[in-house]
């Protein structure tokens, strides 16, 4: 089994309203040494392990579905899993 972990985050130029809200909530909780919070999405995709073109296809899946290139960037890791 191949496990692909995908991380999608907002581009720096896009205001991360949720990240900001979380940051101020963390401040309110009394932790003031926090300087920055960003929130993104995390995916775990499982594929059959004999998948040949996996990397190629994961790129396409990210480009066409998991991330919106206008506002987001992504990266991923492919690992072996059971």
């Amino acid at each position, binding site marked *: 089994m191949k496990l692909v972990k995908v991380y999608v985050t907002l581009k720096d130029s*896009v*205001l991360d*309203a949720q990240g900001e*809200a979380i940051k101020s909530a963390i401040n309110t909780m009394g932790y003031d040494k926090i300087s920055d919070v960003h929130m993104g999405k995390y995916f775990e995709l499982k594929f059959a392990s004999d998948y040949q073109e996996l990397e190629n296809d994961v790129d396409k899946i990210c480009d*066409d*579905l998991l991330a*919106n290139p206008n*506002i987001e960037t992504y990266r991923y890791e492919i690992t072996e899993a059971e």
Partner: protein
Amino acid sequence: MKLAVVNFPGSNCDMDLFYAIRDGIKQAVELVDYRATSLKGFDGVLIPGGFSYGDYLRSGAIAVHAPIVKEIIRFANEGKIVLGICNGFQILTELGLLPGALIQNEKSRFICETVDLEVENNQTIFTSHYQPKEVIKVPVAHGEGRYYCDEATLQELKENRQIIFKYKENINGSVDQIAGIANKEKNVLGMMPHPERAIEEILGSDDGLKLFQSLINPEVKVND
């Protein structure tokens, strides 16, 4: 004129739009399933609001993989009417038929409210019945309605007069208070507010009616 209202799984303003066409402007209208592969015989396609595929992942993101979408793209390219409202707008930006993206409201909360919009460009097939800069009352209902685009895109939108509606008061943090934009050719319009909910006085406003009336009988010559 005959218009199609596309019904994606999870669309929920499809009937509202259907009635706006059938009863509001008395034109032929049909619901078209997302699995359909042809829009033959229609003069325009309307993409309703709602939560296609539950708005899971990102609003509009999953809908763009439905079979009917090829036809929506064809309509856009052939200069036919394409109108996306709310979730429909989100789908059009996900598709790349309109620039930018719609992201979570600045205050991260859903807003349902009737708001004032300014008609920025009344020289389109969608807005020719409005006066220049007319202020209209139209309901909004969205959680992910903050229009975002980069500076270069915004300049382009301005230069090409693609900004069609602006919020009088920036309710969701949109760039330049944008509520609705068109493509360069002005045959594709996406807007977050719901004109189909503003077609009868008893619902609080009938200011949305003129948008649909413009479609059947554009009183202006649309620029190029």
